């Protein structure tokens, strides 16, 4: 580990590209007259980084950084998340009177943090990535400076995020004290050798709570509805997919590689957390009359589904989880794209009331929203069904048939609030003056991509499934 040379950077090439892009975007922002240039530049950077991801496999810095199929799959989720978020944001930021180029730089740095988390072979690198991701998203949450709700969201997110970082660090310290290493695979070996002890179990609980915070698992979900509602909608879309997926990536690697041999001891807790999360997310979403808040609770519920993949464990469980997160990314960003479309000058368009009779006034927007709501419920032939189906299959295959039944019941409950949006759009008459859509070419492109992918995966899922299976190892 003493010899340092340039070749050690080869597995980090996509990260180096993203870091340079973040700096470049910041500089371009200073001179560019149109801030959209910064957005387009960040998309171009992602394209270059994505090209190098499959060529970057390997370990670096003595195993602290691992680029493998698992991390590559998650990096693609982050890239898609970034591209779609940038497309959603361009017009939206103008409407919110917050069209600053720093936005795109922060999105790029946040994505860089996520990439480091997915590739972290060492708990310290994991922490570094997590902080980079989180600090950027705190700022993004408060990006509309003249809006008190946005600032409130940023402060809440920051305080609770800092608290969860402290939990993570405490967990890491305990693990280091017990095993003498922060390298995840060496921790795995040490845990096998030493077996379970009370302090080790305590550290596992600390780490679980920290990841629970970031993935918004109940009872660590409290921040999510407030932050998701207050943050700019485009940032909510970004946060509900990227940071969540990144936390799941790290969760999976740390728990299955580091604490894999103790899985019988921690799956019990995780099963309880998962059921609690599904219950809280799905039942509280029913009461919401603000669509952003409803989607926030829905995002909590989806974390409860995705965590089933870690409970199942092994390549099968991970593949099901990765699959689910990939699909979830598209359908959630799509749904938020419609919410953004309803936001126009002077009209917030976040209340469920605003969706009344949308099918009459704007049939196209209503039809697109219908696809995403069906997909989030898990109705075929949409991608959401495929995601849930393979998740349930993995759960049943691992001998948790009862858990699959519980999940299906909660999934049925979720149909109530997703389909209520559809009911509002198609079965009620428009009230008052009709909402105006603020459709821009970039937003249209984002909607086109998400709708097509959601339907395409729903009809022809095998490429994604085999890709996820291959990536999970």
């Amino acid at each position, binding site marked *: 580990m003493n010899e340092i040379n340039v070749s050690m950077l080869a597995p980090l090439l996509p990260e180096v590209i993203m870091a340079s892009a973040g*700096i470049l975007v*910041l*500089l371009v922002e*200073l001179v560019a007259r149109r801030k959209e240039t910064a957005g387009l530049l960040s998309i171009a950077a992602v394209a270059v980084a994505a090209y190098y991801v499959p060529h970057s496999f390997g370990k670096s810095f003595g195993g602290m950084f691992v680029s493998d199929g698992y991390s590559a799959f998650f990096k693609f989720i982050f890239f898609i998340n970034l591209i779609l978020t940038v497309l959603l944001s361009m017009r939206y930021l103008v409407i919110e009177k917050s069209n600053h180029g720093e936005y795109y730089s922060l999105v790029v740095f946040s994505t860089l943090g996520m990439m480091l988390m997915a590739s972290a072979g060492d708990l310290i690198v994991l922490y570094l990535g997590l902080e980079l991701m989180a600090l950027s998203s705190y700022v993004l949450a408060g990006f509309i400076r003249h809006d008190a709700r946005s600032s409130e969201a940023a402060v809440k997110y920051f305080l609770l995020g800092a608290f969860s970082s402290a939990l993570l660090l405490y967990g890491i310290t305990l693990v280091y*004290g017990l095993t*003498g*290493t922060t390298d995840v695979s*060496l921790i795995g*070996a*040490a845990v096998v050798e030493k077996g379970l002890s009370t302090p080790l179990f305590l550290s596992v609980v600390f780490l679980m709570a920290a990841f629970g915070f970031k993935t918004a698992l109940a009872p660590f979900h409290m921040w999510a509805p407030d932050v998701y509602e207050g943050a700019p909608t485009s940032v909510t879309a970004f946060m509900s997919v990227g940071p969540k997926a990144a936390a799941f990536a790290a969760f999976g690697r740390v728990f299955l590689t580091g604490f894999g041999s103790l899985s019988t001891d921690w799956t019990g807790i995780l099963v309880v957390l998962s059921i609690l999360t599904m219950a809280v997310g799905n039942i509280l979403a029913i009461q919401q009359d603000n669509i952003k808040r409803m989607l926030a609770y829905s995002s909590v519920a989806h974390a409860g589904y995705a965590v089933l993949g870690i409970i199942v464990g092994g390549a099968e469980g991970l593949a099901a989880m990765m699959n689910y997160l990939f699909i979830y990314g598209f359908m959630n960003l799509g749904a938020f794209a419609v919410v953004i479309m309803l936001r126009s000058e002077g009209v917030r368009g976040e209340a469920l009331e605003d969706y009344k009779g949308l099918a009459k006034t704007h049939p196209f927007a209503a039809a697109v929203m219908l696809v995403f709501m069906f997909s989030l419920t898990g109705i075929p032939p949409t991608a959401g069904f495929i995601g849930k189906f393979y998740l349930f299959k993995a759960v049943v295959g691992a001998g948790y048939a009862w858990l699959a039944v519980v999940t299906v019941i909660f999934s049925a409950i979720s149909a109530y609030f997703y389909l209520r949006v559809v009911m509002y759009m198609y079965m009620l008459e428009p009230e008052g003056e009709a909402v105006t859509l603020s459709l821009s070419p970039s937003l249209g492109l984002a909607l086109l991509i998400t709708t097509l992918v959601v339907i395409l995966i729903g009809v022809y899922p095998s490429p994604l499934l085999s890709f996820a299976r291959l990536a999970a190892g």
Partner: protein
Amino acid sequence: MPGSYLPSSYLPVLIFLVISLVFGLGALVMGGMFRLRRPYAEKLRPYESGVTPVGEPRQRFSVRFYVIAMLFVVFDVEVIFLYPWAVVFDRIGLFAFIEMVIFIFILLVGYVYAWRKEAFVWE
């Protein structure tokens, strides 16, 4: 290396912590025990021989102070990293030189950004 790890290698840290605690608290306690106590108004004022206080210390400061303080930290950290690098410079060669140039460049971007955003202008 798992297994070969012994907490005893941190023993000096513990000893250091104990000594500093004992010394710090001890000095205060001993001083309190032996010093003479003759208070009068002039003596009880903060900054006994300094400027007379004019108001409560808790008031709102312009946010600019924080921006300046933050920028100071950036350069502070830069200098902290430059020192050890300069000490071993003749042994680590060109690679480390390029690394440091990249590091300084990144900080420079931050500086240029702050400059262009007029963070140094005091209206």
